[in-house]
Structure formats: structure tokens, C-alpha cells
């Protein structure tokens, strides 16, 4: 036997077999230590905006780089910088701020017993808002549970959203869904499942249907870094690649899947954008806290899809600044203050400073806007609460039998009778 053959069987040079090992990833910092994100190496290479018909095999570096537009000086630079005018930028800022204030009020509502549950998207507002602005209003979104900014940016009724969170008599979902699992077909917002990742392959199917009908509407979907491990994500990438589907596949890498850091989902060995490469799709990693970069990369992926070049995977690199949900306490698994150390800053603050640098905004105007939006959320809250809150003014219990099937079958009619009035 040759020595290389012996090595191939796992032997050491001396011929002894070493005990096998495996590795469980762990984040660098845990509670009790000071937050330290210095190990995150942000790519510094400036990646030019490629032509939308660039062959995917020439885009590999984009999966490992980081597309940025806003610099530390709050100026936009590079050829990714989108041509958004000041009004559009202010609109984006307004939607992000409104989303944040909405979240704050609804979390307080949870703390005071008006709803059982809430999920904030603090720190991730740029993603949903910029992408909603990049998409056409009737493109269909298949979101996860942290893209409420899509609805806000599309001008959807805050009262309608709140009624869902309160499961009250005006909840269009008739009190059936966990709070924040919105559905708004009119706003191009697909019903949120709650089972992770299922919507990814559904978005691909929806986009295939749209293409089959000669429609012009795209589909876009969002999963978190943790959910990239689900089979549905891989179905989505496979089908999107095989059938060259006009769909946007977004991975919101917010570093945390409840208490598991992104290394547990496979983020130690490579990037989530690089998942795309093996499927023959372009994967782009984008600064998710840079409103302009998110907008620009999304526009690129949309243009590529509309030109018939198929799907793009966008990894939106961000940080989940708040708890996973109102039921979660991050102090049990990550150091206090880690969000403040996030090297890519806060998306609202960055766009605000950019507008100020452009001479199109000021601290005074920002304070006034905050006050105005706080009032808007408050007024919406009062109206929503007039329709009921958790356990008060709930939908008629007899409606629980509706919509299981299109028409009530005999056995459900019997069960509804057994429920009584």
C-alpha cells in the first residue's frame, strides 16, 4: 500500500487513526463580555455596477464583497449610487421612521396586554422600505415576518395592520393569525405563513405563473439567515435557476436567528450570497443598512429579471437590533449593547445624515417629522383600538369555520352547530 492510500483511509504518518471530531460554531461574544464585532471584516474592494446581462460566472466576487453607496462621510459615491431625488429620499426616510415608530407603539401595546405578541424590525427598516420603492407597486411580495416596512412604504393602512395585531373585530384575517402575520393582496403582500421559508418556493411558483400568463409583475421573497438552512430555500434556488424565473430571492442576514448566531446557519464557512453560486445564480452581498445600496442592488436585480436573465440572490447584510420578538430576551445570549457596535450603523440615521449632507434635511425637520409621524401612529392606534384589542371585541367565533374550504362542508356545519351561538 502506498503512503497516500494509507492517508486516504484517515491514518497518520505513523499509521494510527486519530479520533474524529466535529465543530459547533459559537459567536465571539456572549452575555457578560463586552460587545466586540471587530472580527467582522468589511470588504473594502469597490465593486462596480455590472451590466445587467453580465454572465453569472463573472459575478462571483459580488457574493463575497459588499455593495455600499453611503460612505462614512454620508455622501453617496460609486456607480451603484441610484438617481433618487431629494423628495424620494425623504419619502424613504419617512417610511423607515414611520415603520420604527409603528413598531415602538405596537411593542408597548404588547407590554400593556393589548396584543399577545409583536415583532419589531428595528435596524432593518432600509431593506423593506428601499425594496418596496425599487419594486413596482403591484409586484408580489412573499415576505417573512420582519418586512412590515413593505406595507408601510406602500402606503397601506396602519389601522388595518394594527387590527390584525389586535386580532379584533376589524381584523380581516378574522383573528386567526399570530400578530404581524399580515396578508394584504391589494398591496401585493402575500399572506405570511409563520413556517419559515415556505414562501420562498411559493414566490418562485407565483413568478412562473406571472410569466406563463405574460404578466409583467415580478415576485420577490425574503428569508432570514437562519432560514437559508430550510429545504424550501434550496427548492426556491433550484427552481429559480432551472426555469430562469423572474424572481428576487432576498436573504436578510441580521446575524441572529432567535438565539443562534449566523454561524449556526452556515455563515462561518462562506456568505449567504455565495449560496447562489452553486445553483448558477448571481448572488450579491449588500450593506442592508445603506438605503441607497439596497435600492440600487434591488433595481439591478429587477432589471436583470425583467430582461429575461432570471433570478438574483441578494444577501442584505444587517443587524437585528431588537429582540427576536416580544417573547424573546436577547440578554440571555448576546452581550448588551452589541447593536450599537454594529459597524454599518443605523439605517434611519444614515439616510438622515445623507440628506443633511445634501442640504436637503435638518435636525429640526427630522424632529418635526418624528413628531408628526408619532401623532399619525397614535391616531391610527386609537382608531384600531376602537375595534378591540386582545380578547376584547373579537370576531364572531362562528367565523372560525369559514375559509377552511371555499364552501362549508357538512361536517363543519355540524361542528358549527355544536359550538352554538
Amino acid at each position, binding site marked *: 500500500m502506498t503512503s497516500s492510500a494509507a492517508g486516504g483511509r484517515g491514518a497518520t504518518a505513523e499509521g494510527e487513526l486519530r479520533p474524529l471530531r466535529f465543530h459547533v460554531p459559537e459567536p465571539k461574544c456572549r452575555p457578560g463580555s463586552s460587545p466586540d464585532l471587530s472580527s467582522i471584516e468589511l470588504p473594502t474592494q469597490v465593486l462596480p455596477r455590472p451590466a445587467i446581462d453580465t454572465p453569472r460566472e463573472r459575478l462571483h466576487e459580488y457574493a463575497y464583497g459588499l455593495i455600499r453607496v453611503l460612505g462614512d462621510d454620508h455622501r453617496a459615491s460609486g456607480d451603484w449610487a441610484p438617481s433618487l431625488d431629494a423628495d424620494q429620499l425623504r419619502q424613504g426616510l419617512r417610511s423607515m421612521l414611520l415603520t420604527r415608530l409603528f413598531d415602538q407603539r405596537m411593542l408597548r401595546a404588547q407590554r400593556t396586554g393589548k396584543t399577545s405578541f409583536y415583532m419589531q424590525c428595528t435596524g432593518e427598516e432600509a431593506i423593506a422600505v428601499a425594496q418596496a420603492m425599487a419594486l413596482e407597486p403591484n409586484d408580489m411580495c412573499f415576505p417573512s415576518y420582519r418586512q412590515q416596512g413593505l406595507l408601510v412604504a406602500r402606503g397601506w393602512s396602519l389601522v388595518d395592520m394594527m387590527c390584525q395585531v389586535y386580532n379584533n373585530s376589524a381584523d*380581516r384575517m378574522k383573528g386567526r393569525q399570530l400578530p404581524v402575520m399580515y396578508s394584504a393582496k391589494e398591496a401585493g403582500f*402575500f399572506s405570511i405563513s409563520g*413556517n419559515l421559508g415556505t414562501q420562498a418556493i*411559493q414566490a*418562485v*411558483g407565483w413568478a412562473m405563473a406571472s410569466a406563463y400568463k405574460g404578466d409583467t409583475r415580478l415576485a420577490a421573497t425574503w428569508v432570514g439567515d437562519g432560514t437559508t438552512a430550510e429545504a*424550501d430555500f434550496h427548492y426556491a434556488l433550484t427552481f429559480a435557476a432551472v426555469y430562469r424565473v423572474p424572481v428576487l430571492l432576498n436573504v436578510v442576514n441580521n446575524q441572529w436567528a432567535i438565539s443562534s448566531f449566523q454561524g449556526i446557519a452556515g455563515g462561518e464557512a462562506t456568505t449567504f450570497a455565495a449560496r447562489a453560486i452553486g445553483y448558477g445564480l448571481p448572488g450579491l452581498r449588500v450593506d442592508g443598512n445603506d438605503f441607497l445600496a439596497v435600492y440600487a442592488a434591488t433595481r439591478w436585480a429587477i432589471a436583470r429579471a425583467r430582461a429575461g436573465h432570471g433570478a438574483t440572490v441578494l444577501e442584505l447584510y444587517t443587524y437585528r437590533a431588537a429582540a427576536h420578538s416580544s417573547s424573546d430576551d436577547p440578554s440571555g445570549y448576546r452581550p448588551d449593547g452589541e447593536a450599537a457596535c454594529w459597524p454599518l450603523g443605523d439605517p434611519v440615521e444614515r439616510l438622515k445624515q445623507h440628506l443633511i449632507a445634501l442640504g436637503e434635511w435638518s435636525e429640526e425637520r427630522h424632529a418635526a417629522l418624528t413628531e408628526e409621524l408619532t401623532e399619525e401612529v397614535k391616531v391610527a392606534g386609537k382608531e384600531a383600538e376602537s375595534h378591540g384589542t386582545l380578547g376584547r371585541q373579537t370576531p364572531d367565533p362562528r367565523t372560525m369555520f369559514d*375559509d377552511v374550504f371555499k364552501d362549508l*362542508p357538512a361536517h363543519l356545519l355540524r361542528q358549527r352547530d355544536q359550538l352554538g351561538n
Partner: protein
Amino acid sequence: MPSMTMIQALNSAMDVMLERDPNVLVFGEDVGYFGGVFRCTAGLQKKYGINRVFDTPIAEGGIVGAAVGMGAYGLRPVVEIQFADYIYPAMDQLTSEAARLRYRSGGEFSAPITVRSPCGGGIYGGQTHSQSPEALFAHVCGLKTVMPSNPYDAKGLLIAAIEDDDPVVFFEPKRLYNGPFDGHHDRPVKPWAGHPLGEVPEGYYRIPLGQAAILRPGSAVTVLCYGTMVHVALAAVEESGVDAEVIDLRTLVPLDLETIENSVRKTGRCVVVHEATRTGGFGAELSAQVQEACFDYLEAPIERLTGWDTPYPLAHEWHYFPGPARVGAALKRALEY
């Protein structure tokens, strides 16, 4: 009227619906160019084009998930899961997504999809090509579960399933694809040709979901069955000379309880037969429903005759399969109680 096998009848149903409704698409593993491993989609891609009838990656969860998205858009996809034994990767998309989309969205979105899948044994398929998992799907609220027993019903039920606005899981007993197998595996194979239920109209017709069929009227005992067991039960009844009423359920959900009740009230005895394993099987549900609805009329305990609670063993297929002798013995027990 032409004679068709169940394969030809299913093919005809999809042909009719592809012709009638441009929103109908057909896809699955090997269903496109090749026409399916059982040939159920043969010729459809050539006739309707590669955008309407196509092959998919080997990803059952992906097939059903994509269908859910298409259904939400407004199409009526008809997908094939090559063997029912392979349907489990799609369980989440069926139970958590297709079945609940209308409910969870307050009626905004729905998934009018049809999932076809060959089931059952009798073909020496072993434990990965013989299962009958219908009870798992009948347990899921929001799904309709269908299993035809003959070519005529297969076509009419499949058309009804495709037109249905709710998701339908459509199980096809593969041992019945080419003939009415009655469990006598040691006898020559019978074809559908010449069988009255092998006479299938060329065009459009539908058999409503939720309606059972009384295939043999009788007064001594009611036999509840579906799929392959319909033919086994009919053979057992004939061989034992019992005046049994044999009811082919055709649809498990929604269940035609009225036909079942009327029969058991008349006969006072009931035997439930299925090929699937016993514990938690659909026979348990049938027994419970009959007991609840007909307790005062029952003259004997309800007999449940099923596959054993083991995986489907290849070498012992005919020991596992609830053949006519075992069904006959169950009829006798019910009658002699």
C-alpha cells in the same frame, strides 16, 4: 363508449382540462417529455407545449410549493408526486400552506391545486413504493382527499378535483392502473377492457367530490372501502355468498356520511376495509363515525380489516395485503356475532 385503463382515463381527464382551461398546468418528475413513469401524462407535453406540461427537479416539496404559488396567482396546477411514498417532503407545503392559505389569509389567497400520486401495493414495490398514506391527509383540515377505484370514476373525480377551488390530494391505486385487481394475485391479470367501469366517455364529465357510490346493494352487512380494496371486497362478497352492501367511498374528505348512515341503519352491521396500516388509519375514523351515527342500529361490533402495522414488506407482500380471504373472514365475523 371507449374502453380505457385508469391510466388512459386519468390522461384523458388532464387532456380535457388542459384543453378547456388555459390556467391548467401539469408538472412533476418525469411527467413532461417522457409522460410519467406510469404514462399518465403521455402525449400531453407534445399536445399542449413545454410551458404547460413539464418536468421538474426531484424535489417534492418544491413541486408542491411552486404549485401553491401558482395557485395563489390564479392558475390551477396539477402536479404528480411519482409515488405516494415520496410525498412526505411536501408534507409541510400541503398541511401548513396549501391547506391553510385560504383560512389564514381570511379568504384573500387560496391554493386550488391538485396533487396526484400513485399509492398502494400489490406490485412488489416494497416499503418505498407501496404505501397508502391517505389517513395523514384526511386528518388535515383544509385538504380534500380522493381515491378512485376505477377508470370512469378516476376521470370524473380528477376533473372535479382540478375544478375544485380547494387543494385536493388525489391518490391513484397503482395496482388498479391496468385492471380491476381483486387480490387474487395468483390468477391471470384482468384488464379493464370489458369491465363496465372501464367504459369512459371521451369528453368532459365530472363526479362530484364527497359522493360515495354503492357498487353492490345488499341487506346483510355494509362494507366501507375505497381504492384497490373495493375490488377485493366485491370478490370476497361474491365468494362468500354474503348479501353485503359494498360502498366505494371515492372521497374521504368530504365524507359522504349520509350514504354510509343509510346503509348501516339498514344492514345493522359494518366492515371497514383499507390497505393502509391499522393504527390511526382512516378505518378508525370510519368506525367512530358509524358508531356515533348508528349505535342504536348496530347488531355487531364494527369490523376493521386493514394492512398490518408494519412497513410494506416486499417478500411478504401477500401476507401483508388484506386479500379476499381475510375480508371474507371479517364478513363472517360481523355476520356471526
